[in-house]
């Protein structure tokens, strides 16, 4: 009986979504004319090269036009890390170490992960430093770095994250983001407004505050994701 009801519900939701999506033509240009933008998409595409001199329009949107969303997003990550800490809170004895894996992994995996761990870190840093030029950015780069730490946690039994370092990195990165925003508020009367010279498009140093913020976001995301993984992995089984 319950099964029947659920299948009926799924059918209704599926029908509802299909009907609404059938009105939205796939691949149609809904942005309109770029030279006289009426939609936000067209506006961002046409203004970004000139006014911000950032090659990657998505980065420009994420960090500048809709930078406020990104500040919220960073706080969501911060909240998730904090929430995890409070939900899984357990008084740790001093010097107690909880291994992240139960069995030590094979020598091959250990040697291999040691080999590629620095490469993963470099790739992650590359992705967030070049966020305004190429696909990627702070979130993607931070996630890549966190996978490197995950690899180390999985292959080494006694690999520990230094929580004090994580706290410092995530706090300082968050403070950097919020303070850059506040400097914009003081200098240009608008929160998160660009106050640095924008440079030339496709240069590494271009786009004013955008690369700065994205590097801070990269550090913050890397620290937070690694912290979350560490919290989830180092839980004592009863």
């Amino acid at each position, binding site marked *: 009986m319950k099964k029947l009801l659920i299948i009926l519900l799924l059918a209704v939701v599926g029908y509802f979504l299909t009907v609404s999506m059938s009105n939205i033509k796939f691949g149609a240009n809904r942005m309109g004319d770029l030279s006289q933008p009426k939609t936000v998409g067209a506006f961002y595409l046409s203004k970004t090269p000139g006014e911000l001199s950032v090659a990657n329009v998505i980065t420009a949107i994420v960090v500048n036009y809709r*930078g406020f969303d990104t500040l919220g997003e960073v706080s*969501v990550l911060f909240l998730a890390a904090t929430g995890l800490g409070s939900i899984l809170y357990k008084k740790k004895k001093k010097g107690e170490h909880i291994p992240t894996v139960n069995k030590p992994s094979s020598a091959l995996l250990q040697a291999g992960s040691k080999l590629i761990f620095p490469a993963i870190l470099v790739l992650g840093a590359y992705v967030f430093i070049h966020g305004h030029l190429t696909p990627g950015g702070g979130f993607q780069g931070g996630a890549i770095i966190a996978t490197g730490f995950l690899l180390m946690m999985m292959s080494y039994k006694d690999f520990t994250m230094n929580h004090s370092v994580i706290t410092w990195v995530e706090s300082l990165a968050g403070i950097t983001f919020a303070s850059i925003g506040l400097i914009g508020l003081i200098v240009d009367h608008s929160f998160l407004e660009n106050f640095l010279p924008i440079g030339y498009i496709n240069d590494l140093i271009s786009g004013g505050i955008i690369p700065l913020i994205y590097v801070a976001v990269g550090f913050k995301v890397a620290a937070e994701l690694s912290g979350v993984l560490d919290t989830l992995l180092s839980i004592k089984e009863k």
Partner: protein
Amino acid sequence: MVISPVHYIAVPLLAAFLMPLLAKIHRELTRIVPGLVILYLGYVSVVLMNQVMAHGTIVEVIAGWNAPWGINLVYSPFTGFLASMMTAMAFVIWLYSYRFKKVDSQPALKYFILFMMLVTGTIGIVLTGDIFNFFVFLEITAISSYSLTAFYRDRDGAEAAFKYLLIGSFASAFILIAILLLYTQVGTLNMAQIAVRMHDVPTHMKITILILFLVGLGIEAEMFPLNGWAPDAYSQAPSPVGVTFAALVVKAGVYGLIRIIFTLFDVHGAYEYLIVMGAITLVMAELAAIRQKSLKRMLAYSSIGQMGVVMIAFGIGTNEAVFGAIFLMFNHAVIKGLLFMSGSYLVYNTPNKEIQYLSGYGMKMPLISLFFSLGALAIVGLPPFAGFWSKLYILIAAADNQMIGLIALILGVSIVEIVYYFRVVGRLYFGKPSKGSIMQKPTYGGVIAMSLLAIVILVVGFYPDVITPYIHNAADALLDKAQYIHSVLPNADLSQIQNLK
């Protein structure tokens, strides 16, 4: 630095990022800093409310991109009133949770970070003028609520939080799909611009999007039948968090619902939908409240019922009704705050928080019982307390619109309310005292917090004029859609805009 609405968001976030470092300097700082931040926000509220009352709506542009291209914050008399109310309540709740005994045995740092972010999220929901930014703040609120609900490990907090998270995730999925469909139709995310372009959206699409929004936000606003999470979350969360849910989180949900219906869409049936759903919510919640054995669950259901009345009043949609609704939102925050605060001390040590063990507490805990009785008298709407005025305005508005059925319903439900509140009060003062129960001595912060709320209830009850000018302006601002659009987009074509009510 000039005071501007973005301080409401930026300052608490900066403080939240700073707090893990401050905790390394001195542990006490983790408790004091949130209070200082909220106190500063109170100062911001005073400055900005004076500006708004004198010069009208303040629109703050973020990142230097004017509406509709960037994100903006709209500080109108309505949103400003709600934000100031939330700040004030947040301060009182902070006083109450300062040195709250059980919070201390757990990581206080995490509690206060989550609490501060919860406050920031709800204020952000109210102030933002961008529909996707609205969603982001909704999620900030939601994630901190989930974590805070599961804060205590000696209760079923995790179960309640998981329930809340499941339903909350559905809500955010619905809202995301609604934003997606809306974006394909209007090509913008700015609320004022959406309102301008809504005229050209095909009707069937409009209704689809509206339904998705109503379902999603209905969950946050505790609308029937999507409020199954609320009583569990209220009763399992730490008491200060329960107060925060009643005073801030639900208000933000209702605000979202109202903003969507009043400003974004111009669909006629939406108002009637609010009345019908509000009435069903009211009846179901009050009937559930009278059956509860646990005091906190009773208060939670009563809170849902009050939200039903608020929805009915907004659904009537005339100026008086909206005035009554905003007044009731204010009263509900204050009175339900007092009830939750005093109630949770009453049932601090009783098994399962049940009402039947409260016999004779009136003599043992005179001050707390007095506060609880005051709250009970005020919330059922007896004169001369604050709750009376809001109920009166809503009833007058209903009478003006010949909605006799609604008047009968609200009055009938009030009798139910009187029955279950006075059952508790009666037991407090006339019940036979039981032996061996341990009284919990309230903290000084808690006593100050409750006294402040009690004073507000009495002052607003005897001199409603201290608050009514603000609420009048708020109601006008909410109903004047063209003015909202004009203040955000000065060059917009307003010829297509019509106020439905």
